[in-house]
């Protein structure tokens, strides 16, 4: 039996309430350990209040030195979105080529899987030497990390298209390009979306790692570094929370898109 719209709304409410209670429990435990029991000195592990102060000054403070977290978020988002878009375009092209041509798949595909296992931060020293101490070095790492999951997802998706669809496409008179663009690619969209979501989290993590080592412009990585350098652990924690929240928000957006497409493709029964 299909659950009604009202029932679905109710279960959504329940999830939200449970998540809210979980958040309150975590904040309470944090507050208890730091501000009440004072198990750690504030310069080692500050309480939620101190971190909230950093967040509020950093995001909507109006003092001459305030709002730095906000400009850091702007800088980081601009950087990651630029890198991500390039990574996705590059990934789709490389993935299509790999899906269409077997020798490329067996060589490049295998290497890409290997490169993917290298932590992004390991590429930063090379990027700095190769491209200089600048934004291009950060973009290089973001693109490298982002394009691999897309390429692998696209080529994998093409291989998983049911042979019947190929045959049907050919029979109806599609050429190689037509088959690729009008049959194989649309059929692979759900798997590609999964790749896009992985690519996002890879790019986002690579970005923060790169920014940490290549300071200069406003960035979340720089805020982490400044917090560390000025013994401001509250700023470090505030930045970590912001990185997590942004990463999570984008992930849930992409997850929602992925879920919708999967339902449209009939891969999931609506609940």
């Amino acid at each position: 039996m299909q659950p009604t719209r009202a029932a679905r709304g109710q279960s959504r409410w329940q999830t939200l309430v449970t998540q809210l209670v979980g958040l309150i429990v975590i904040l309470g435990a944090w507050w208890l350990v730091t501000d009440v029991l004072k198990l750690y000195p504030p310069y080692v592990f500050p309480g939620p209040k101190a971190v909230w102060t950093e967040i509020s000054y950093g995001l909507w403070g109006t003092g001459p030195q305030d709002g730095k977290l906000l400009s850091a978020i702007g800088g980081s988002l601009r950087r990651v979105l630029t890198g991500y878009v390039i990574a996705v375009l590059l990934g789709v092209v490389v993935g299509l080529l790999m899906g269409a041509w077997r020798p490329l798949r067996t060589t490049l595909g295998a290497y890409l899987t290997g490169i993917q296992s290298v932590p992004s931060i390991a590429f930063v020293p090379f990027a700095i030497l190769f491209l200089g101490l600048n934004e291009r070095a950060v973009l290089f790492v973001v693109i490298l990390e982002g394009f691999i999951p897309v390429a692998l997802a696209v080529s994998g998706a093409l291989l998983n298209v049911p042979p019947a669809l190929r045959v049907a496409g050919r029979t109806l008179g599609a050429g190689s390009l037509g088959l690729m663009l009008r049959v194989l690619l649309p059929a692979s969209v759900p798997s590609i979306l999964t790749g896009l979501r992985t690519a996002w989290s890879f790019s986002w993590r690579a970005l923060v790692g790169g920014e940490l080592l290549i300071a200069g412009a406003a960035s979340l990585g720089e805020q982490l570094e400044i917090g560390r350098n000025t013994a401001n652990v509250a700023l470090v924690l505030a930045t970590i929370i912001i990185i997590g929240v942004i990463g999570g928000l984008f992930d849930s957006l992409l997850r929602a898109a992925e879920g919708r497409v999967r339902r449209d493709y009939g891969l999931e029964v609506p609940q």
Partner: protein
Amino acid sequence: MTRFTLPTLLTLTLLTTAAAQDAQTVRLGFFPNLTHAPALVGLERGTFQKALGKVKLDAREFVSGTTLTEAFAAGQIDIAYVGPGPAINAAGRGMPVQFLAGASEAGAVLVVRKDSGIKSYKDLGGKIVAVPSLGNTQDISLRHILNENNLKPKADGGTVTITPIAPADVLAAFAAKRVDATLVPEPWGAALEAQGHKVIGSEKTVWRDGKYPTTVVIVNAKFAQANPQLVAAFLKAHTDAVAFINKSPVAAQTAVNNQLLKATGTKLDPRVLQRAFARTRFTTNLDLAALTEYAKLNVEAGYARSAPDLAPFIRK
């Protein structure tokens, strides 16, 4: 069930008494820079170890005030030679810091790459400037210089890119044209100058006519309270080291060079070291007024929201 017998209780009492006694080691933090010369000279000549007697000296080298402050916060360092910037930040965040003495004044210069086209502070717009680390003493000074010349760091919407590079690596960064200028502590300024790069901000024009602390000695307040004699002995040794530097600069330069070789693997030309020495003053004096102004510059640079009252942090 565990039973506490008399011997166990006795052992426990003995153990706690032993812990309350003087420390068995003094863990000292310093950097391999000329502005830390009292530390380098004291180590090279065995001054500290002699003063501490049976207590072992455990000297640990750091690259910047950042990592040193972290070690200090984690309770891994008892006494440290450090720039006023990190020390003031540590004090402002409630770390158990006590300012013990001064170590050096001035000794930081603004050097520009010979082909960078920079002639004065105003030309720094659009350029990449290196400092030892973000939030350190030279970074705070640089942001003040930029502010005075109506320039802004890129992260604050301006045009000057401030990038952290360890002073010993600045020579390589200049050679590779990765940076255009740097505000560094000596001897790295003189070393750059020896390669043809230009000093456009001398130790005197950087700030306050050169009357500013570059390195101070801090002690963990808890350690100082538990080990007053050890701290007094160390302070005496530090005073002796500073006196030796001022009395026998040539011997002191050799001692510094030996320690630099140990720390960085490079020895400097004695003439370079001599020039760097001329731009640095060694003193045990702690200038509270200058430190207080530094704390205000720290606020101006955006590294703190208020300047702490430093007087209570200075050892009486």
